[in-house]
């Protein structure tokens, strides 16, 4: 069951905005970007909402990384996961470059990241149910799995 706190974090993360130069297409990723033109508007809306949330997650990780309270191995994990969220955004079949989010929280912690990842995995599961194109559906299922695994990986971090 999603906690109220996780839900609130997820909503905040998913709804904020400012500009980044992030692009969203990469031929090396599971979804074929060339197929986006043929996909229904519904899939495009799903893809864009995922991009917005993934970029917001990256911003949240960058906030936590910027804090000085994490040891080297934790920082490496956080950087790796932040990069995975960039790859998630790039895997979406859209060229939509969302506005960069303004901070959703003042000083997010690893516990906040865990809540946000849990919420993201649930959101991706819901998006997967809405998607119609097979490639997009597969990517969203994989991303949901990845984000669920992030929850576990972050939960194993030993507090400093």
């Amino acid at each position, binding site marked *: 069951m999603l906690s109220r706190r996780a839900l609130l974090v997820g909503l905040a993360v998913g709804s904020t905005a400012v500009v980044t130069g992030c692009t969203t297409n990469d031929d090396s*990723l599971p979804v074929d970007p060339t197929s986006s033109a043929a996909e229904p508007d519904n899939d495009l809306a799903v893809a864009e909402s995922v991009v917005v949330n993934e970029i917001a997650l990256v911003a949240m990780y960058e906030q936590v990384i910027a804090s000085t309270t994490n040891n080297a191995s934790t920082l490496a994990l956080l950087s*790796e*996961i932040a990069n995975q969220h960039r790859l998630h955004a790039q895997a979406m079949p859209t060229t939509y470059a969302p506005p960069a989010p303004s901070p959703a929280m003042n000083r997010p912690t690893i516990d906040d990241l865990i809540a946000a990842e849990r919420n993201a995995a649930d959101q991706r599961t819901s998006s997967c149910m809405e998607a119609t194109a*097979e*490639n997009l559906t597969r990517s969203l*299922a994989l991303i949901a*799995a990845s984000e669920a695994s992030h929850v*576990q990986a972050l939960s194993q971090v030993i507090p400093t």
Partner: protein
Amino acid sequence: MSGALEQVIQGEEAAVYAYGRAAPYLSGAENDRVRGGLVAHQQRVTALRAELNVQSQPQAPLGFEVPQVIDGGTARSLLGEVEARLSAQYADLAAASTGDQRREAVLIARECAVRSITWGAAPQPFPGR
């Protein structure tokens, strides 16, 4: 859809085999988790095979090519890899199905990815891909 389902069944059977191979090298709480994983994967094989028409059920393989398991480290590594691969197979099943079956496939893909981490695998952006 049945192609993806057959792939998942083979992945689940591979997982059962891998857990069996890993079990002797893991003790205590880890062995409990191995037994839990083994039962979960066996149950999935049974449930998934029931979804397929009897005539189209794939033959249960005689064995699988897996990396050599010689100690706890290689046992964990094998289980982490098998779970991640299974996660990707369930994502394929999700893509090939609709409704409740798709939701179930995504939720199991998530479970497999989580178990992969508990066996020491690193998080992946697209587990098993």
